């Protein structure tokens, strides 16, 4: 198996600014990790049913389900974590109290407990991811070789993962606090990497830079940066593209049998200028991303949209670049 940049990582957390395609990247990463017969769990926690939409399946219940096969006999499984169900599971697991859940639910307490403070909800969600990671150590019915967590966006990711601090405000002692401590130990270890998805645009790159700084401050392990939806430049040199004069362009077009008006000639030149300007801006953003000093992976914009075939294509690219 070719070497990857993250040989020790079991839990891949994928975040990114809204609109950067973090769910797509998480799914492609899961497929890439599932090569060579490995079993990978792809988890979502925001109740959006993003996985069902992406893999074109009916809405997923809180239940581990197979989503796709990977080349070489690997499998990607999916789980849409619901905070209330996670709480019930937690009660059962630790206190053998599943029946109490019914009472709590009737009184509206489930919603209360899971929304009272995101810290409590988050510890249940991250706790579920950590439980899946730990299965690898035990003789569990279904263990996974890797877990990919489609996590909340960059703006919230540090708070989401830093459950310890978030919980400290409301629960200084008690079982949930102990649970948070245990979860935190795994999230801060070298078994975890938090990858950030971005576009070559100013705001997403700024958020990525802020996100890296916040994660580092919280001693959470920053992984790679995935630059999504890039478009290859059409020409090696942008200066050249904008240097063509109208007469030369028009003569060349006429020679190719394209009888175009002067307006179209000008429009084509203007499109070239737009493109050159965009490529120049993208280069600036690329340099800012490189300056963050993290491994960088690039995925192209796929004009046909994202379907299962496209996910396999993106997974191959992540594999070739060493992310998985």
């Amino acid at each position, binding site marked *: 198996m070719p070497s990857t940049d993250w040989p020790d990582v079991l839990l891949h957390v994928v975040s990114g*600014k809204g609109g950067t395609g973090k769910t797509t990247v998480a799914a492609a990463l899961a497929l890439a990790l599932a090569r060579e017969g490995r079993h990978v769990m792809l988890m979502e926690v925001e109740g959006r049913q993003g996985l069902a939409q992406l893999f074109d399946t009916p809405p997923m219940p809180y239940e581990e389900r197979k989503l796709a096969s990977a080349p070489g006999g690997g499998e990607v499984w999916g789980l849409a974590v619901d905070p209330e169900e996670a709480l019930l599971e937690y009660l059962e697991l630790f*206190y053998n109290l599943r029946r109490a859940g019914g009472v*709590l639910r009737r009184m509206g307490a489930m919603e209360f407990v899971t929304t009272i*403070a995101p810290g409590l909800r988050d510890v249940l969600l991250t706790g579920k991811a950590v439980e899946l990671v730990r299965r690898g150590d035990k003789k569990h019915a279904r263990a996974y070789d890797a877990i990919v967590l489609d996590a909340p966006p960059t703006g919230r990711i540090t708070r989401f993962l830093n459950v310890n601090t978030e919980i400290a405000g409301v*629960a200084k002692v008690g079982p949930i606090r102990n649970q948070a401590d245990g979860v935190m130990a795994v999230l801060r270890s070298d078994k975890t990497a938090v990858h950030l998805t971005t576009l070559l645009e100013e705001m997403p790159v700024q958020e990525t830079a802020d996100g890296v700084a916040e994660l580092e401050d919280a001693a959470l392990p920053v992984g790679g940066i995935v630059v999504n939806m890039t478009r290859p430049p059409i*020409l090696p040199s942008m200066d050249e593209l904008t240097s063509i004069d109208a007469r030369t362009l028009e003569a060349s077009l006429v020679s190719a049998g394209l009888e175009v008006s002067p307006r179209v000639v000008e*429009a084509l030149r203007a499109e070239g200028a*737009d493109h050159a300007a965009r490529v120049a*801006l993208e280069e600036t953003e690329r340099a800012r991303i490189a300056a963050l000093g993290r491994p960088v992976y690039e995925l192209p914009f796929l004009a046909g949209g994202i379907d299962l075939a496209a996910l396999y294509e993106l997974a191959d690219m992540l594999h070739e670049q060493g992310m998985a």
Partner: protein
Amino acid sequence: MPSVPVLDVDALLSDPATRIIVCCGSGGVGKTTTAAALGLRAAEMGRRVCVLTIDPARRLAQAMGLSELDNTPRPVVGVDGDGSLSAMMLDMKRTFDEVVESHSDADRAQAILDNPFYQALSSSFAGTQEYMAMEKLGQLRTEADREGTWDLIVVDTPPSRSALDFLDAPDRLGTFLDGRFIKILTAPARGAGRGLGKLLGAGLGLFSGVLTKILGAQLLTDLAAFVGAVDTMFGGFRERAEATYALLKDPGTSFIVVAAPERDSLREASYFVDRLEQDGMPLAGLVLNRVQEIRAPELSVEEATAGVQRLQTEDPRVAALLRLHADRLRNGERQARLARRFTAAHPGVPVTEVYALAEDVHDLEGLREVGTLLASSSSTD
């Protein structure tokens, strides 16, 4: 194909009956920039405008002179004409604190502000930001009516995962604060404990036992203290949320849904439009943002591609420009297909398109340019 009605932005902005414009949409579609551009354009048409932004990009905030976060509208310098523009950035916690302070005496307010449970709730409850955005909108509107400071308020909505959160969150917080559960939990504090306790019997014991197990006793103590302290405010909270929600249904309010021509973004927009209709809220139209600009539509993909094959010149620039043009046309066509799905499902919703700009907006000139694009669909189509 039936023609899609055009969103006439200038007519909306110049109509004195338009008092509130709410910009909604999923994250990352340019909502904040759209809100700011609408505000500036209205101001330069002579309106007295206040723009409430939630989480502006640093450079956009600087462009509007929003260097300090003091939760108060500040005049924006550099606006042309007789109108005026003020802008503010929402400080969620401060707004919540002010609500608490305005509803209770100083001692009681301080007890609430110091409560760890309140601190968690006011800074991180899922929905607090949306609730506070609405609260602030209500305050600004009251101020506008009382003092005549503004005749138009443009609101940007929080960067939620779903546009619907803006409408749902206040209710969620309200339900939470005066929900059955909190009443039960704090029944002794309200002097109704015995009756309720009897009614619920063993259920309640089991229930608080479980909660103590999960949350720890300290949290329940803090919570009870919080609930005890805000007891008198509950009605007020609820009433305020309801009054602001009603304001959103006012004929003077217009919703503008912002979307990018991408599948997920348009799906969110679709949900939102359905919801506005269901709740009887006035939708002005859809801003389709970041649309591929086609500068020479008369040269088709086929012609451009065939042209590349027939080129006699060695000049690589010509082939590059033709390929680039074909790419843009294909991308534009893909976006148009996605947009048609939306318009087919919502044929009555007026639409305006804004081209993707090369660079993020970071000064008033950039906002003016966006404003011109927002208003241009009505004049060219």
